[in-house]
């Protein structure tokens, strides 16, 4: 018989408010194997832990049950306390009588018996607990940052500065991301490129950063400390060592296609760098568009290239590397507003999204930095900005607020006034949201000093008439109908998750919210961690975010990654699966189901009649096993058990709950 001690926590009034502690204590004393029971107001406090430690020694306890909050919160705290008292930490069992009980019930009559049942179950399980040892695992001292926007660059720089090698993987030919597309940044109106390009160059030149542009993640295996990642280096068809970035190839290339960087508003060549400040300044050939690849002739770039860097024979390459930690910073997309038929997006060249409008201010943009109508090249006199296009819209768009639109609209209205002094801006908004240092002041300046008319209301219809756009809306404060004959309309399209975020999430094994933004492990206390140990998130892939927030989160993620990389050894999973070879029939369904490739077949020799028989059985590699338990449920004969959660233990819990009410 075990010698079990039960300790019940009041958690202030969190538990004690709904669970009669004395009654639970009394009941616990009668559980099989229980030789001691005690309670304390805050068991997780130092005093509380001491009560447990002293009792282990005094009563010679070999099992401990704590009735407290979720094991996610304090299982480690109590395991550590038990270990300090000389007990194997896995002999301690947590009964979650807070989240599973007191918090979901209102009155003691319900809460108390349920808490007792949960304690009884934990005591029954604890009796079957075995001492376990967590294996020590190596940490690969190398980090992977996925996404070369400002968040990824910042995270890579911070990790590199701490002395670790970082691979910065970017799917486009250049790093820079969304920020590279911006003209100015709010609320200080610094030139975006002026503050971004030094960071891009710093990343490219940092001895600890290995820039991997035009690369995609192909496969992620392994676990914290030892992620085995396959990275696909897409063929550039340009030798990066020979190329000098002189630009003759893209000057001479005869085939044109809409530029992704310019939001399709202008053309790029089939051999191209996305923008003039690209890092690295090495072009790629767009295989889908290149005349040579399509039709087998042209080869002008090859003929013209002074250092003869063009290489049509280049193939995609797959690079396999091991990383200790991964930071995901893949950014966001802009919603396509054409789903809102009333705004007429896509049907008129002067109806633009915020990001498209932004490009008009840029000296290397489609208009060379002149803010003019794309329809006739004239500067706009009246511009209507519409907020929340796809944001805060339960019916047709996203429920959430995209957070950056109020600010970038104010910024664009100010920039417009500076470029076209006679221009007048009108902003249709639901609410103006400007929380942030200097943000409110900035927006007020737009309204008060830059003659921007803010109108609370919605636009019902936009249609072209003569050479302007008629914008019909309602001012919801006065109730009046408004009609503006505008020269341009700018739609603040919602920031949405990258279209391929669900695939990437699945590939690297992190989960997403219903909008496909990656989930943080805890909304307040673990904002850059994910539920997968060793994988961190930063920037707008987690939720819409402005530059300062993205950079701050990137640095936070970098610290977490560095903290991990600085460890000599990590403690692995003690609760791993184990195969009973005598029962295993060797069907190897477990091998097929295991997400960690931890199961392999082994040959067994058995006595049979006068000789021996060979047969195949499954074997778990405990260093790879993460204790997910998938194999145990796929095994029909019950030959696999998860240590710490064995079939026997779980049935004992069920019996303890069901058999006695």
């Amino acid at each position, binding site marked *: 018989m075990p010698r079990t001690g039960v300790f019940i926590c009041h958690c202030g009034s969190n538990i004690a408010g709904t669970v009669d502690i004395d009654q639970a204590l009394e009941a616990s004393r009668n559980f099989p194997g229980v030789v001691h029971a005690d309670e304390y107001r805050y068991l997780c406090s130092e005093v509380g832990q001491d009560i447990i430690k002293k009792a282990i020694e005094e009563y010679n306890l070999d099992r401990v049950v704590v009735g407290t909050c979720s094991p996610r919160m304090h299982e480690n705290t109590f395991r550590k306390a038990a270990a300090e008292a000389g007990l194997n930490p896995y002999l301690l069992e947590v009964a979650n009588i807070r989240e599973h009980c007191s918090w979901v019930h209102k009155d003691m009559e319900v809460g108390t018996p349920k808490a007792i049942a949960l304690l009884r179950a934990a005591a029954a399980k604890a009796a079957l607990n075995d001492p376990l040892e967590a294996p020590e695992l190596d940490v690969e001292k190398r980090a992977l940052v996925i996404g070369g926007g400002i968040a990824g660059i910042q995270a890579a720089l911070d990790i590199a500065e701490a002395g670790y090698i970082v691979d910065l993987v970017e799917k486009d030919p250049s790093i820079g991301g969304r920020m590279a597309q911006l003209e100015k940044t709010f609320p200080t109106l610094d030139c975006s490129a002026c503050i971004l390009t030094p960071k891009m160059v710093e990343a490219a030149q940092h001895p600890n950063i290995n820039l991997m542009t035009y690369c995609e993640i192909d496969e992620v295996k392994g676990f914290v400390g030892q992620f085995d990642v396959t990275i696909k280096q897409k063929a550039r068809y340009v030798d990066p060592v020979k190329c000098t970035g002189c630009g003759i190839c893209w000057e001479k290339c005869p085939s044109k296609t809409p530029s992704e960087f310019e939001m399709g508003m202008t053309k790029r060549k089939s051999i191209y760098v996305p923008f003039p400040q690209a890092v690295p300044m090495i072009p790629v050939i767009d295989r889908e568009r290149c005349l040579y690849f399509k039709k087998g002739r042209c080869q002008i770039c090859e003929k013209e290239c002074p250092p003869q860097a063009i290489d049509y024979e280049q193939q995609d390459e797959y690079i396999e590397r091991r990383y200790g930690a991964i930071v995901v910073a893949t950014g966001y997309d802009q919603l396509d507003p054409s789903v809102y038929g009333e705004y007429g997006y896509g049907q008129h060249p002067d109806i633009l999204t915020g990001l498209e409008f932004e490009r008009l201010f840029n000296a290397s943009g489609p208009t060379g930095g002149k803010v003019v109508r794309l329809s006739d090249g004239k500067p706009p006199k009246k511009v209507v900005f519409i907020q929340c296009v796809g944001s805060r819209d339960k019916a047709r768009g996203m429920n959430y607020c995209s957070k950056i639109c109020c600010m970038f609209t104010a910024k664009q209205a100010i920039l417009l006034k500076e470029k076209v002094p006679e221009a007048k801006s009108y902003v249709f908004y639901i609410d103006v949201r400007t929380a942030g240092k200097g943000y409110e002041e900035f927006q007020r300046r737009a309204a008060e000093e830059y003659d921007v008319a803010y109108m609370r209301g919605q636009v019902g219809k936009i249609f072209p008439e003569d050479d302007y756009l008629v914008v019909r809306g309602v001012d919801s404060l006065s109730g009046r109908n408004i009609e503006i004959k505008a020269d341009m309309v700018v739609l603040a399209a919602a920031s949405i998750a990258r279209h391929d975020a*669900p695939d990437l999430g699945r590939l690297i094994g992190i989960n997403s919210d219903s909008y496909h933004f990656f989930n943080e492990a805890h909304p307040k206390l673990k904002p850059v961690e994910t539920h997968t140990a060793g994988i961190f998130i930063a920037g707008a892939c987690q939720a819409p975010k402005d530059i300062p927030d993205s950079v701050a989160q990137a640095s936070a993620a970098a610290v977490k990654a560095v903290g991990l990389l600085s460890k000599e050894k990590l403690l692995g999973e003690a609760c791993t699966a184990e195969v009973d070879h005598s*029962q295993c*029939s060797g069907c190897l*369904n477990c091998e*097929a189901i295991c997400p960690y490739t931890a199961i392999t077949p082994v040959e067994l020799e058995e006595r049979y*009649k006068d000789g021996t028989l060979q047969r*195949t059985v499954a074997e778990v590699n405990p260093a790879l096993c993460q204790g997910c338990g998938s194999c145990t449920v796929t095994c*029909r004969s*019950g030959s696999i058990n998860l240590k710490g959660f064995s079939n026997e233990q779980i049935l004992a819990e069920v019996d303890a709950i069901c058999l006695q009410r």
Partner: protein
Amino acid sequence: MAERNLDSVKKIREAVSQDLLGGRISQVLGWEKGHYWWQSRPLFARSEADLEKLTWDSFCVINLSRYLLEELKDHEKVGVLVKGCDARAFNRLLQDNMVKREQVILYGLPCPGMLDYNRLCEEAGAVPDGIVENNGTVVLKTDGGEKEVQREDIMLDKCRECVYPDPAAYDQMLLSPQGEREAAERFKPVEELEELPADERFAYWEKELSRCLRCYACRQACPFCSCRECFVEQENPRWQGRAYQPSENFMFHLVRAYHGTGRCIDCGECERSCPVDIPLQELNRKLIKDINELYGDYEAGLDAEAEPPLLTYRPDDPAAFSEK
């Protein structure tokens, strides 16, 4: 006396005796006549004399592949006569890693469907003395005379509903194929049960399962039951209570059926071997139907290379089960 198809038997015997006597295999699994004319039982032929007993008639219903589990312990290489369902059973064993393909020679026998003794007697009005098979009809001989009936009418249920009478796996096809049969309405009873409210459905199964003797004949006959120790016999933990009561019968039958999810080859041997006529195929087919509806059509045992739906993951797999 059941009439033997002498030409076919001769052909089969010739083919297998070549391999057996030539030493390529050390045993052939086939059928021989049993005590009664309406029974054909498994034959474990190791010699020329054994092969004399080999038969192929309308009563060779027993699925032979299941015997490989034991026989391959004693023999390096075995030959097996396989009907459509035996071949699917073989693929089942292959996918479960219970046999190695190179250990077995499969002799394919396209199956005309096996006859049901009970139906014979019903049709004849007495126990017949024997039958004579014509093309598509069967003449039942009794003391009172002869009666000619449609063959289809006196076939076993499982054979009437069979879609794949030709072996899906074989090394040699010994007879000419039957061709795929009209997909019988095998899911109809399941659909009817699904229409019932939950309490009536429960009452139906409570009644059916109350007859269960827990003799486990269904398990013994089944090609998907290949555990070294069945959960019903395991002691620690003891999943299956020994008490003879409805909840324990439910436990056994539901777990047995679930273990066949995506694996049951629909051979019907469980139901045929049940001494108290529990409609076990309805349980199996409910799960076959669910798998088809959730993951797309999948016929277990037809193709040993096809990925079993429950062992594969696709991003578009349904995330939730219907509320039905």
